């Protein structure tokens, strides 16, 4: 450019000037591109980071509470079932022993006179004991409801693990393609929301002590009061 200027060659000077400007613009465009892709990467990272922060700060601790509650539900149900079985066993033993004694007495050539009264007593005892056994069996059945409640909670935690896996996968993808050419989309995670989130339409699963579900009823009496207030 300086040679063209010294030689007074206006055309050569103009051409050199245009070339200089083009090279400068090209450099600026490239820098802008790098800044833009960096920004894009940062935005994606921010979306994934926010998701991970929410998962780490809220949903994972909630899941821990939920699993602890499942443990308690299964523990309570197992103990209740065993309590009821333990109550039934002596009743059954008693009836069997009394029946054995009566059969032996009945088989004698000359049964003792009070056997009639003993049979009467035995039948009365059998009726009472069997009613207790029947009641306990019904309660054993009802106690198995823990499987439904714990199953719903475990399903929710499984959905959370899926979501966590997706968010971590997105993070790895973004970290591996930090120049902005990556295809990781943080918003993909939105389609995998756990069972516990979203609207009421699908339900939220059982309410777990220590996990905030918003205003909730506490037992059947609460439900009945609410229904009564609603005119039912």
């Amino acid at each position, binding site marked *: 450019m300086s040679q063209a200027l010294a030689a007074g060659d206006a055309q050569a000077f103009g051409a050199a000037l245009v070339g200089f400007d083009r090279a400068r613009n090209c450099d600026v465009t490239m820098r802008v591109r790098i800044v833009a892709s960096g920004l894009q990467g940062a935005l994606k990272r921010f979306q994934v980071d926010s998701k991970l922060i929410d998962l780490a700060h809220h949903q994972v601790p909630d899941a821990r509470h939920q699993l602890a509650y499942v443990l308690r539900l299964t523990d309570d149900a197992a103990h209740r079932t065993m309590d009821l079985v333990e109550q039934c066993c002596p009743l059954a033993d008693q009836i069997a022993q009394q029946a054995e004694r009566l059969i032996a007495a009945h088989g004698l050539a000359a049964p003792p006179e009070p056997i009639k009264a003993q049979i009467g007593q035995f039948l009365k005892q059998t009726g009472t004991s069997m009613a207790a056994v029947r009641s306990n069996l019904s309660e054993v059945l009802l106690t198995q409801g*823990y499987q439904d409640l714990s199953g719903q909670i475990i399903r929710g935690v499984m959905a959370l693990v899926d979501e966590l896996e997706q968010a971590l996968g997105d993070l790895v993808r973004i970290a591996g393609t930090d120049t902005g050419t990556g295809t990781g989309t943080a918003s993909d995670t939105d389609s995998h929301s756990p069972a516990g989130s979203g609207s009421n339409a699908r339900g939220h699963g059982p309410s777990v002590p220590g996990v905030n579900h918003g205003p909730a009823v506490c037992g059947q009496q609460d439900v009945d009061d609410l229904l009564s207030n609603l005119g039912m």
Partner: protein
Amino acid sequence: MQQNLNILVVDDFSTMRRIIKNLLHDLGYASVSEADDGNTALPLLKSGNFNFLITDWNMPGMPGLELLKQVRADARLGNMPVLMLTAEAKRDQIVEAVQAGVNGYVIKPFTAATLKEKIDKIMASRAAA
């Protein structure tokens, strides 16, 4: 003993369906069928001769609330008594179920006495209407 009810129990957990079915048998209801979500329940309701529905809320496929709405929207099934038996405990959910036309709401875990009381109450109000 009330053997005249033909009941459909809808719950995705087979253990819970067995529990409810056994309790209903104890209460004298011998005719009890099962479905595992709203999608399987609806065709059964439309083709069958059911006159009482007991449904869970949170189920894969069609949830209980949607099943309730579909039942209420159906000309033939619209008047069927529906008892929601669910672990869903949010107050606004119960309000939503009432608005959708539920006849009773039992929260899990429940007792045999509660189930009996709610069915009896629904049937008594039906008889009085």
